[in-house]
């Protein structure tokens, strides 16, 4: 889009505002804004500061069109959503075989913070549970803790097209209270699954979870995956195209904590959620969705975010295994046809 003339770029941003698809998202936002179920995460005080009414929906297409409704500029910490993308970086650093020797890709059905390893291989179950994410963070290359962090931040910048910061109070709180994660790290060290630079790796893990993003960034992250690893707006490559499939597959099977099976069945969009209230969901080849709403359900997934993804999947047939003709044609709604009654 950067190369378009000024008139074309202005008209394209205006048509994104008036497109029937954005109007659909606007109605969806209004429909679920009043939903007051769920509770904001409060295991550290900084997360409890989030306002329950915050609610943003953003969709970015593989062609780089951006549709946003609600609080799409509000920053929050990425939390577990980082795990999918750091997994991608580990794949780039070491290749699939080596990474798989350290972390399995099997869904657990256990809570995200369960202290459980595969009894035969001693591997953590998958990169989306805390144990697996710590083992994955351990794989990130770099000569110093600073260099490793900078590589992670640079990776997120390639995906989203903008620079990211760490929320330091969140990082320090996670670090100060993360005894369970520390215990898991030592257990994995005991089995030789991670290196002995434990403090450095745990710092990196807590830092990656404390990266500040907004709903638009989340949509851009998944749109980049949907677009084969290239950011559809900046055209910068964020991840080697050969690893995109691995990242998306693990999101589909393990991305929504221990609700992943139900999610795959009902929504069928590879996705990753975080306790900050974010969800990023991929429709391969087509688009990325980012939602932000802090109140969470019992399994730790954003209440309104789930509803939004469910409706989008149903109304536009975005479930990856959908074989029926959807109620609405996504391309038609994005382009806006003369015959479409979106009023």
């Amino acid at each position, binding site marked *: 889009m950067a190369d378009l003339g000024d*008139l074309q770029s*202005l*008209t394209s941003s*205006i*048509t994104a*505002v*008036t497109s029937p698809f*954005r109007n659909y998202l*606007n109605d969806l936002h209004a429909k679920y804004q009043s939903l007051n179920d769920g509770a904001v995460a409060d295991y550290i005080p900084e997360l409890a500061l989030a306002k329950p009414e915050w609610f943003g929906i953003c969709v970015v297409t593989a062609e780089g069109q951006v549709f946003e409704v609600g609080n799409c500029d509000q920053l929050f910490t990425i939390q577990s959503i980082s795990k999918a993308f750091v997994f991608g970086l580990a794949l780039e650093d070491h290749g699939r075989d080596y990474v798989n020797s350290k972390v399995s890709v099997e869904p657990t059905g256990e809570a995200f913070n369960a202290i459980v390893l595969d009894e035969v291989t001693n591997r953590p179950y998958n990169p989306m549970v805390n144990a697996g994410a710590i083992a994955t963070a351990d794989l990130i290359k770099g000569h110093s803790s600073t260099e490793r962090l900078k590589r992670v931040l640079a990776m997120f910048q390639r995906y989203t097209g903008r620079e990211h910061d760490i929320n330091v109070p969140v990082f320090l709180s996670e670090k100060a209270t993360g005894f369970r994660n520390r215990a898991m790290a030592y257990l994995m060290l005991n089995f030789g699954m991670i290196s002995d630079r434990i403090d450095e790796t745990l710092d990196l893990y807590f830092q990656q979870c404390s990266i500040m993003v907004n709903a638009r960034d989340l949509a851009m992250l998944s749109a980049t995956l949907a677009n084969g690893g290239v950011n559809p707006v900046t055209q910068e490559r964020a991840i080697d195209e050969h690893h995109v499939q691995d990242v998306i597959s693990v999101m589909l099977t393990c991305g929504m904590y221990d609700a992943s099976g139900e999610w795959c069945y009902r929504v069928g969009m590879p996705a990753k959620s975080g306790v900050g209230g974010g969800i990023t969901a991929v429709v391969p080849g087509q688009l990325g969705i980012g939602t932000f709403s802090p109140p969470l359900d019992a399994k730790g997934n954003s209440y309104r975010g789930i509803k939004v993804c469910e409706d989008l999947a149903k109304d536009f047939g975005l479930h990856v295994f959908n074989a029926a003709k959807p109620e609405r044609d996504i391309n038609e709604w994005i382009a*806006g046809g003369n015959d479409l009654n979106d009023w």
Partner: protein
Amino acid sequence: MPKVISIHSYRGGTGKSNFTANLAATVAALGHRVGVIDTDVPSPGIHNLFCLEPEQMGITLNNYLWGESPIQDAAYDISANIGLDESGRLFLVPSSVKADDIARILKDGYDVKLMNDGFRSLVKGLELEYLFIDTHPGLSKETFLSIAISHVLVLILRPDKQDYQGTAVTMDVARQLNVRKMLLTINKAHSKLNLEALKQKVEATYGETVAGVFPLSEDIVQLASEGVFCVKYPEHPVSQEFRNVAQQIL
């Protein structure tokens, strides 16, 4: 399905607000629920034609754009003001005429997404059949938005060179925005001109339909800016021409 009609002119002084008021009132008088929204935030004025005094305007479009109130609260039922009978309804969403308010919106700008969402919730909330958007002359964010959202774009021009050129520019933009239907209207045509020949020439030049030609009318000038001509003098040839234009957007 509700219809959105944007009335636009490239330059000021074409009689755009007057035209909008008369066309909207004509459609309402045919028994429809009609809304008019004054998006000319830098220089609002159409409220005068609907006999809505600044002191009667509590909440305006400005308050909606600042997130202070729902857009329905800025809508005023002005059916009685202009003497519409029971069958139709006409609502106006005015922009603020307070200097402070105008300065604030020019200085801080506003979210164009909010304007779009406001149009839609106004149509839904008031169950409007037709929404007329009165715009600021020239090209701006709100012009682009109103063109993109419209089912019909009405471009008003006077028969002079500056208007011809500006109209061509606006039409380029409208086509870029994939406008669904475009109509041209010639206003303030001098009585010495052959109106039919003028109409054909403009249609040939732009390749779009001329929906109506309005002569420079002393009758309208005399009544300008107080009340809606078409409602007061329904049998006048000018009112007849407005009904003719209305038929092309219904």
